[in-house]
């Protein structure tokens, strides 16, 4: 985002709000990076474009959130995206999961987009006007992401025997990682106390209310809630994340300031 756009912000974020914005921005940035790996590899050219569109929407959200969060410490969106070490990224582990097959990608997208929809809808009435504005724009984009991913999960789950089997396996793979989306921590508590954002745990009912009927219609069985991997919010990531980051940052680090 340009400086002129930032100067339109009513006030600079506090340290907490900056960290919160970067946290949400990291989620969007990392999932965008994962999704563009499908470019030229999707099952159909039509889906190739659809996934790239979703990735670009997420990248746009990431840029706004990272620019806003970075303004607290004088860092640009590029500084944050390209020059942070792995442990300084605070995205949930769900978004860094490898794409797997098309079913994994679509199930992950459904679970994440449905969460983002609940989140942004609440953030629209945030006490922080900049976050409210970002959420107000993003919520329309995300509503479509839910619809698109939902359509595919429905067709894969309630499709052929093979597609059902793979969609169920995808759900088993991705589901445990959904818990981290709704895990509260100290920062989230302070953010909620000040009316800036929702307590993550309070979003889960609404999320389940939109995800569960769709999964049932797709003839998929909800996995039991057992293993709850977490750590992304405090900078602990899965093995796959390092490779993702290398690809994301390589060009900028090799050619500082490169542009085209």
């Amino acid at each position, binding site marked *: 985002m340009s400086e002129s756009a930032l100067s339109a912000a009513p006030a600079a974020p506090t340290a907490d709000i900056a960290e919160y914005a970067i946290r949400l921005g990291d989620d969007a940035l990392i999932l965008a990076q994962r999704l563009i790996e499908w470019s030229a590899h999707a099952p159909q050219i*039509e889906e190739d474009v*659809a996934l790239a569109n979703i990735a670009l929407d997420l990248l746009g959200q990431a840029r706004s959130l990272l620019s806003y969060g970075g303004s607290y410490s004088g860092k640009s969106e590029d500084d944050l995206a390209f020059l942070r070490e792995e442990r300084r990224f605070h995205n949930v582990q769900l978004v860094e999961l490898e794409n797997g097959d098309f079913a994994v990608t679509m199930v992950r997208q459904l679970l994440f987009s449905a969460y983002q929809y609940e989140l942004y809808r609440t953030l629209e009435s945030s006490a922080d006007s900049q976050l409210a504005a970002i959420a107000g724009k993003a919520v329309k984009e995300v509503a479509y992401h839910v619809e698109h991913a939902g359509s595919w999960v429905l067709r894969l789950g309630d499709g052929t025997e093979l597609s059902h089997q793979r969609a169920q396996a995808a759900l088993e793979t991705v589901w445990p990682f959904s818990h981290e989306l709704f895990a509260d921590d100290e920062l989230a508590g302070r953010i909620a106390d000040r009316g800036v954002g929702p307590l993550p745990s309070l979003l889960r009912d609404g999320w389940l209310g939109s995800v569960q009927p769709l999964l049932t219609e797709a003839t998929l069985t909800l996995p039991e809630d057992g293993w709850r991997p977490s750590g992304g919010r405090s900078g602990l990531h899965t093995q796959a994340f390092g490779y993702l980051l290398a690809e994301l940052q390589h060009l900028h680090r090799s050619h500082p300031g490169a542009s085209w």
Partner: protein
Amino acid sequence: MTTAPTPLWEVFVRPVRGTNHVHVGSLHASDATLALQNARDLYTRRSEGVSIWVVPSAAIVASSPDEKDPYFAPAGDKPYRHPTFYTIPDGVEHL
């Protein structure tokens, strides 16, 4: 595993309210809902439209190039079918 070819759909987009849907291209999709979503992603991402139709390409009945002469040639030498062929007599108002 063999898969059936994904059906082809023709896409029509209406650019603004009050105008006609115009054919913009075609795409592949397994069913009508996904065809609409694909059309949205392929043809309206730069605010090109306010409404989309998708029609199975197989449902379109087209004139054949072989029939070009019997179909279209006879109209070629009949300019009197255009209103501009006629001169308006002097003194005619409100036409």
